[in-house]
């Protein structure tokens, strides 16, 4: 089973040189730690920044410089600030090449739910609905099952929807999945996880190719 760092590490393998990438809060943020050294990636933060850098050294925090998770950050050379309308404008126009975000549920048709649990949690969608509606390529980082063992890869979402038919790929603690007309297509297994375990843990339609390689780190 992959831990959070390994999920991030696996997602980082999807990066290509020259990509503009938006990383959501949580596991997606960790992806930045695994960008290969020879690769240039520019991180977009939807509150209004291209060229996000690592966290600042202690004592060098700038309250005017935060990411979409409200964390203090730094910038890299070539960074640029803009207002939130332009920020979502470039997202809506498809200029961001890859969006990585978390989810509570994903359906086998690409629907995603990640913003609300009725009666329990009312935090709001932030930029998630804009991102999922517009991104060219969305990868979801998530736990495969809930704490009580219920699959979060479903035939249809039970929670309020964030966006329809938008997720292209899921990296869970159990494996890597494309989403296409066949539903979840199992591409890779987590180390030590059998196809049978994944089948048993997936409520939505699952397509299992003849060969499903095990990930190595």
């Amino acid at each position: 089973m992959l831990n959070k760092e390994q999920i991030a590490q696996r997602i980082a393998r999807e990066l290509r040189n020259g990509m503009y990438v938006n990383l959501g809060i949580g596991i997606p943020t960790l992806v930045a730690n695994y960008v290969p050294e020879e690769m240039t990636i520019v991180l977009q933060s939807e509150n209004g920044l291209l060229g996000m850098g690592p966290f600042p050294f202690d004592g060098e925090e700038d309250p005017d410089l935060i990411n979409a998770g409200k964390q203090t950050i730094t910038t890299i050379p070539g960074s640029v600030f803009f207002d939130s309308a332009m920020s979502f404008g470039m997202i809506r126009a498809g200029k961001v090449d890859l969006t990585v975000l978390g989810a509570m549920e994903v359906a086998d048709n690409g629907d995603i739910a990640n913003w609300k649990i009725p009666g329990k949690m009312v935090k709001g969608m932030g930029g998630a609905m804009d991102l999922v509606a517009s991104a060219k390529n969305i990868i979801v980082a998530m736990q495969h099952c809930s704490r009580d063992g219920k699959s979060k890869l479903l035939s249809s979402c039970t929670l309020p929807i964030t966006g329809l038919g938008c997720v292209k790929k899921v990296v869970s603690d159990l494996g890597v999945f494309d989403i296409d007309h066949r539903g979840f297509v199992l591409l890779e297994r987590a180390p030590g996880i059998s196809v049978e375990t994944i089948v048993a843990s997936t409520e939505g339609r699952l397509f299992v190719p003849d060969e499903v390689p095990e990930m190595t780190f």
Partner: protein
Amino acid sequence: MNKVVANAHAAISDVQDGMTLMLGGFGLCGIPENLIAALVQKNVKNLTCISNNAGVDDFGIGLMLQQRQVKKMISSYVGENAEFERQLLSGELEVELIPQGTLATRCMAAGYGMPAVFTPAGVGTEVAEGKETRVFNGKTYLMEMAFEADFALVKAWKGDTQGNLIFRATARNFNPLMAMAGKTTIAEVEELVPAGELDPDAIHTPGIYVHRIFQGKDYEKRIEQRTVKPR
């Protein structure tokens, strides 16, 4: 064209109960601290507040929530505020949650005289309920209406006596958009300079959108998530 007022209290003297206010900022970054403090002191009530967030329990718009000054919040994310959640769940506070980009674009639309805009954000979700949809090039969009407010309250880094504004880093966020959308726009700035001192190529908000401006004081600039790396 001198738009300078003495301070936050003078600037909001005609803000009245029941009005709609826009407040700039993302989280606690770039919020109009002085204007919020003045609203708290004036204790105007039944406000509708349009702001991406609702502050934290003891800072930002959270201070207005504590005093029950807010009737309705229109925001995209309100996850940092226990008092907010309590008022919401108890029904004391009306809340409309809308996508962040939709919020930003609806403000800009007002400033650009565009009555409505199209965005795909929220199609097929609760957000789409009651809204007109339209298909362009095979993709479905929601028609979202421009946002106006009686007052837009923004915070800039530098401003001049004619109301021209420059923002700093990610404290820009919603501020220039809301500045364009206020029937009356009030800007507080960290540094107020005479007209002519700002580089005309580097101004983010032209003074034509700003009606009152003043030099703010005692900025706390609280950090919500202090994240650092070891030296």
